[in-house]
């Protein structure tokens, strides 16, 4: 609760700071607010409080809140030199990102369907606007409108599902719904089943899992790169936390019912994400497709429900978040220098920028899942979890897809080290250096010594 209040109040203070033209103060205020909420996450660890029967701040919620806040801090650090110097709207951009984060904290801790809906909407509405803040840019406008229409459509599915479940159980409360499922297992109302499927569809839209992924590449490519990095890391993590809270806990008794549709979604997501990423010439679009394929791996935690499911998602989401932030940060730097985001822009980057290229290489290795990086631990845990029920074919399919992934991640590394190119020298501002170095340290540390995060929840 205090976490959400802190974030919302910070957003308001930033909005007022913008009104009084205190441009220099925006970033410090935001960071202080986020660090304070991070401190609240740490101090309320293991307390497991329920607020008004609507929000449950258990360790699951706190762990995901922590990771989303850290991700947002990194993204705020990347705003240095990003928005135009004379832009008058930076305070509003910051406020909207903070509001989205407040919605995300609601999404990771809800205990009631109404809270899920409100959290999701706060996050989505802020993102629809953030995707379109480049008003003169056609791609940005298109991304915003497309995201808005698709998002509103998927919210319709989600709401319809919630309504049917309310009709069947008479409650929005997750515990009551779970009690209903356990208590009346033989006589569950037939309305409940389409409700579950519709919620599955609505949430799959939000996390960008195939076949509901069509908005993802266009929106990720059209939105400003900084907003894309927020959407594909922090927002995605929150979507999975919401997914997990609902399906791994509340709907767990119906696992046999929703497993087949989920398996179809997982396989399609892995296949479409990886294969389409192969053919991309644009780095940003490739990252969009790779984020689709990572959604597939993340959904593995729901295929076999075990006590470790939540923690596996946490590890995977952490690995994916920090590696992606590195990739997007370097992309912003390259784009500022060369003006486009094609793979060709990365040619010969290693000659003049050894440290940046090394860090990007580690990030790519982590996304591909090479040992000694966090990405490997994440993939290993996911596969291990599914192997617990001998889903051999699924694991074989996933490993094949991971191999496909190697190809397009290595394409970047090859371009940087082995291709001749226009040897540009990137101007890396201090804050970018901090984010890059911290992210790479976290990625390698989690890969070498995963025990810190392994049994957190």
């Amino acid at each position, binding site marked *: 609760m205090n976490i*959400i209040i802190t974030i*919302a109040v910070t957003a308001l203070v930033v*909005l007022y700071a913008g009104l009084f033209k205190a441009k220099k103060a925006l970033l410090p205020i935001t960071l202080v607010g986020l660090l304070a909420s991070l401190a609240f996450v740490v101090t309320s660890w293991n307390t497991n409080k329920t*607020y*008004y*029967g*609507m*929000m449950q701040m258990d360790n699951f919620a706190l762990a995901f809140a922590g990771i989303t806040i850290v991700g947002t801090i990194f993204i705020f650090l990347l705003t240095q030199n990003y928005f135009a110097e004379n*832009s*008058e*709207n930076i305070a*509003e*951009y910051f*406020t*909207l990102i903070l*509001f*989205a984060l*407040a*919605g995300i904290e*609601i999404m990771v801790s809800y205990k*009631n369907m*109404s*809270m899920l809906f*409100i*959290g999701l*909407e*706060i996050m989505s*509405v*802020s993102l*629809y*606007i953030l995707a*379109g*803040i480049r*008003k003169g840019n056609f791609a940005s406008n298109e991304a915003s409108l497309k995201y808005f229409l698709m998002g509103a459509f998927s919210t319709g599915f989600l709401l319809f599902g919630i309504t049917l479940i309310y009709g069947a159980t008479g409650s929005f409360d997750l515990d009551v719904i779970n009690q209903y499922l356990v208590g009346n297992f033989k006589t569950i*109302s*037939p*309305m409940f*089943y*389409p409700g579950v*499927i519709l919620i599955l569809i609505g949430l799959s839209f939000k996390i960008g899992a195939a076949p509901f992924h069509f908005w993802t590449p266009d929106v990720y490519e059209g939105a400003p790169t900084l907003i894309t990095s927020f959407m594909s890391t922090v927002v995605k993590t929150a979507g999975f936390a919401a997914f997990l809270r609902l399906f791994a806990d509340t709907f767990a008794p119906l696992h046999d019912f929703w497993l087949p549709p989920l398996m179809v979604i997982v396989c399609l997501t892995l296949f479409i994400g990886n294969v389409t990423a192969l053919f991309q010439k644009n780095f940003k679009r490739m990252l969009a497709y790779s984020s689709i394929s990572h959604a597939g791996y993340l959904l593995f935690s729901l295929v076999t429900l075990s006590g470790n499911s939540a923690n596996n998602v946490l590890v995977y989401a952490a690995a994916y978040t920090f590696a992606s932030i590195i990739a997007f940060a370097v992309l912003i730097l390259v784009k500022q220098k060369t003006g486009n985001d094609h793979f060709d822009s990365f040619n010969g980057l290693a000659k003049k920028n050894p440290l940046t290229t090394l860090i990007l290489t580690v990030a790519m290795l982590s996304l591909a899942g090479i040992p000694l990086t966090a990405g490997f631990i994440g993939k290993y845990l996911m596969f291990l979890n599914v192997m617990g029920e001998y889903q051999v074919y699924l694991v074989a399919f996933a490993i094949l897809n991971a191999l496909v992934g190697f190809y397009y991640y290595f394409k970047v590394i090859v371009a940087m080290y082995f291709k001749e190119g226009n040897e540009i020298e990137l101007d890396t501002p201090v804050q970018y250096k901090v984010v890059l170095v911290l992210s790479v340290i976290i990625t390698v540390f989690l890969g070498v010594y995963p025990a810190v995060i392994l049994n957190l929840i």
Partner: protein
Amino acid sequence: MGTSVFYFVATLSVIFSLMVIFSKNPVHSVLYLIVTFFTFTVHYILLNAQFLAVVNFIVYMGAIMVLFLFVLMLLNLNKDNEPLKSNMVKIVGVIAGCCLVVTLVGSLKATAISDPVILRNPNLGLLKNLGKELFGPYMLPFELSSILLLSAMVGAVLLTKKEKV
């Protein structure tokens, strides 16, 4: 009496919402949508939810519909600039939609039919009870929706404000 009114109005709702989709002229669609919302208002009155009925009447039928009409006029939609949809997409859409309809109809048929107009608690929809619910068990989501409205407001101002060049 009540049951027959309910079924009559429900049939009208279904017919008019179908007309919204099938009419070619977008302005007609909006007008049918207004009628559909009016039938919803009747449903709320049948459920003795007076506050919701009035809000639905004023806000949805009045304000939002006018907004829709304005947007349609500004966009100047007509047949010429309507995007062409391939037959493939249409067929896939029909199949997917029919699957959804079959699932929903099947599951609703299997549910026991309750009497649609007998209310277990006739005062359920009254303003007093609504307020008690909103400021009692649902206070937190009610208050948090202020963040939603504020972010939408900030966004609307941000997107429409002219940038100084």
